[in-house]
């Protein structure tokens, strides 16, 4: 069994993402792993180039930084953690990040801030569980 050294935690400010952060901290503590928090602003790159004003982009970036800072603030000093902000389709960006950054495990909420309230497992989480090469911990 491969050791878990680097854990990816996609964050979006939702309650289930907050609970994922808490679980990821427990896991990182147990495995002595590093944490990488990733906030993905769901904006299409073409839209950014074509029509989004700097003011809107700045607001989105600021919102992402607030969420990342809050996650980082929860982490005890004994655990190494970093925050990353990206733009794009969340599921795709999260998987790309996991593959390119040598992630050993993904910890995420079962559903985030998506609009369909009835479903038990959100579309992003479902996509990640299906497509991820590494183990995925889903937190309600």
């Amino acid at each position: 069994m491969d050791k878990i050294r680097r854990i990816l935690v996609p964050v979006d400010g939702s309650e289930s993402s907050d609970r994922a952060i808490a679980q990821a901290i427990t896991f990182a503590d147990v495995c002595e792993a590093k944490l990488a928090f990733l906030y993905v602003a769901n904006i299409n790159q073409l839209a950014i180039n074509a029509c989004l004003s700097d003011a809107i982009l700045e607001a989105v970036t600021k919102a992402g930084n607030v969420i990342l800072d809050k996650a980082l603030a929860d982490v005890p000093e004994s655990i190494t953690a970093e925050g990353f902000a990206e733009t794009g389709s969340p599921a795709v960006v999260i998987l790309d990040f996991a593959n390119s950054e040598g992630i050993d495990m993904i910890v995420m909420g079962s559903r985030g801030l998506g609009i369909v309230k009835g479903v038990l497992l959100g579309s992003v989480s479902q996509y990640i569980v299906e497509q991820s090469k590494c183990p995925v911990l889903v937190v309600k």
Partner: protein
Amino acid sequence: MAEYRHILVPVDGSASSLKAVEQAIELAGLCDAEINFIHVANLNGVMGSYPAFVSPRSNFSGSILEDVVEIGRKILDQALDMVPQSIKAKGHCVNGNPASAILQEAEVLNVDLIIVGSRGLGVLKGTLVGSVSRSLLGNANCPVLVVKAEEQK
């Protein structure tokens, strides 16, 4: 910081379930947790299309039941044999709908983590995540860790 004390691992002898066993052993060794393996014999699923067989206890012949229990034992023993002596582990064999039986056992044993293979021995080879794992993800009260077998990657 919370810790993991009781880990539940459903086993069915499939490649991804063995991977889940390995992952559970690794984690239990790190945080001194106890592992509970559960094997669910899905007799109703096997005979579901025959109403006469809906209640296995009254309709299955003794030898079929014995065979199924025997297979379940072997799968549990295979998992238990992988666990080093320093880690506490138990095996549970139950009959019923796999997802409901696993969820019920998770409640009874008050587990704080379920580790499950992404897909078991179900018939739909094309699916990436089996129906049991999917049901656990949607309905479990504790976190669920989904692991994949090598060939799925």
